[in-house]
């Protein structure tokens, strides 16, 4: 089973490496990991998706909790939360296929952020499955390259992760 964790950490150099290293050396598999600033300048929020059973998850959380730079860990898998990924996809676009691609982009409510004579760059935010679906359709046109952020997640509860029990 996949678990999504929101990990609030001190915003210090090397902290991401430390977190990722700990998970890796304890032999747990990281599916995705994203990090960025939060509303507090000295706090970084890392969203980690790990694969494993509940006992594995308990170990990951307990081991991570031991790191002095980890302020709080909230498991978001169990609670209603917004989950998003961002993808930038560069796809082959000849004049005769362009309108097709524009149609697809509209259906997916994605955005065309760059066009040149041979390619277009499409931006899409959404759940992982939606991005997968768009990629599948665009594959027919030929994806030149793409980049995805990995999952970001935010609880729908009124409070903040930093305040939760």
């Amino acid at each position, binding site marked *: 089973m996949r678990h999504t964790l929101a990990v609030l950490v001190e915003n210090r150099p090397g902290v991401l490496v430390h977190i990722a290293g*700990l998970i890796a050396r304890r032999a747990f598999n990281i599916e995705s990991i994203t990090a960025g600033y939060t509303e507090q300048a000295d706090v970084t929020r890392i969203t980690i998706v790990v694969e494993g059973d509940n*006992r594995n998850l308990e170990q990951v959380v307990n081991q991570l*909790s*031991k790191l002095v730079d980890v302020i709080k860990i909230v498991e978001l898998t169990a609670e209603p939360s917004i989950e998003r990924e961002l993808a930038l996809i560069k796809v082959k676009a000849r004049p005769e296929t362009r309108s097709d691609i524009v149609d697809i982009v509209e259906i997916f409510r994605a955005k065309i952020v760059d066009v040149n004579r041979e390619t277009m760059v499409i931006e899409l935010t959404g759940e992982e499955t939606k991005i997968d679906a768009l990629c599948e359709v665009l594959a027919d046109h030929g994806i030149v390259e793409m980049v995805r952020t990995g999952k970001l997640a935010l609880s729908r509860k009124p409070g903040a992760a930093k305040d939760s029990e």
Partner: protein
Amino acid sequence: MKMTGAQAIVASLEKEGVELIFGYPGGQVLPLYDALYDCKLRHVLTRHEQGAAHAADGYARATGKVGVCFATSGPGATNLITGIATAYMDSVPMVCITGQVPLSVIGKDSFQEADITGITAPITKHNYLVKNANDLPRVIKEAFFIARTGRPGPVVIDVPKCLMTTTIDFDYPETVRLRGYKPQAEGKAEEVEAVVQALAEAKKPLFFIGGGVITAEAAPLLRRLAETQQIPLISTLMGLGAIPATDPLFLGMVGMHGTVAANRAVMECDLLVGVGVRFDDRVTGLLARFASNARVVHFDIDRAEVNKNVVADLAVVGDLRWSLAALEAAMADFAKAGGPSRWEDWRCQVSRWSQEAPLGYQKSDEVIKPQSVIEEIDRQTKSDAVIVTDVGQHQMWAAQYYRYQRPRRLITSGGLGTMGYGLPAAIGAQMGKPEEQVVLISGDGSFLMNCQELATAVEHRLPLKVAILNNKVLGMVRQWQKLFFNQRYSYTTFANGGTDYVRLAEAFGATGLRAERPEEMPQVIAKALATEGPVVMDIRVCCDENVLPMVPAGAPLDQMINGEVK
């Protein structure tokens, strides 16, 4: 107060009550050594940085205080690694201060540069690369707090040379503020209540104690609890000494080289109460069969230990001084109402096992049996020396045949199993406990790994005694080759009959003594104990002796090789 970064480090260490530092100078840590030159702190120059780390570790284990060591950048710092990892695996409080190249050249592959915070991340409780000299007092305050609280462990502080010469306004903080680190001494009362319930329901309860009991200074509490409730106990290697070896309720060490009684008790018990243990694989054997008839209770300060290896039915997370006291209080009525008498049959059963299958070996008049050396040391030191060991067969015999009466009486590398640990750790222990008799029990293989530290012992005229159980082979590896590799003794014999340890000792300025015949051995030990300064005993033991009983790696605890030897 204005001072340099180096002076601020020294002043901070003084504020933390540090008395003794083990270290080795070098280019990038020179300003700190310069500051040491005119302060009251005592510094011990070891002959290798690994020796400094192990000495700080031995000092910490013997005294319960935080061990401190210094090293320079790059190779100096990487030489500490084995010592840091050893301390980490056994939860030993340590603060290591390493020099680093100046900030301006970090990341340029500068001379003697190594990313020591990166390298030590997996083997430290926490580490710091200090970037601003003004942070030094705060960082040192935090480091000591982290090292000694909660589950103790080593902390590394990497200090670029330029910070040591920067002038700062020294002000030592009174308190520590760490958002992510708040060790909880007290756990939940209802968790303790659940354990009381489980004990009341149990027919065959068993205490399983580990190094955490000693670290938490909870041994007297545990002993009182076990005696009031009349519950038998078994111990890990790290827990030896928490309960006197001669206590009738104590069944000895459990695991790969544990006693028959201890291993049988684990397989038979219906409630196993782990206290300050981490269910290491050397203890559990085959996990699926470990304590398979029992509900498992786990007392520990580290939540991450619960369910890591063995799934616990009940857990009490918190400082053992809190949790054992809470358990004792909650069990008081049970004891008064005669509850423990229900376990009479169980107690009789386990003590019968102890009598039926005591530890034993074939005695000899022809060759010196290594076990007999430990027994003789035990006799002559009245079971009250601080015993330090290296790693291998001698370590297991020292665990089996010395009768530890008190905590902090056995100092040994349990988790990492570090050969070469013994001599520097013994130096640290002896310096921390100058009034105690420290005896290092080593093997010829282990001793050679850090024998240069004899120079340190000689320099300080330490009354340290070293007994090398010299069998001219790497005994434990050879034992595995004998039992599991068809006696193919691949590279485990020292060529030319090994090293002459008497002359080695003399070369360093220590006293060397040798025993080759069984009748010489007791006199040599007596002479060593009566001789001033460091003494090395080269005790020539037979090479074909095995540590028994033995549970093969990965087998269940009731599959013991030769468990019934008389």
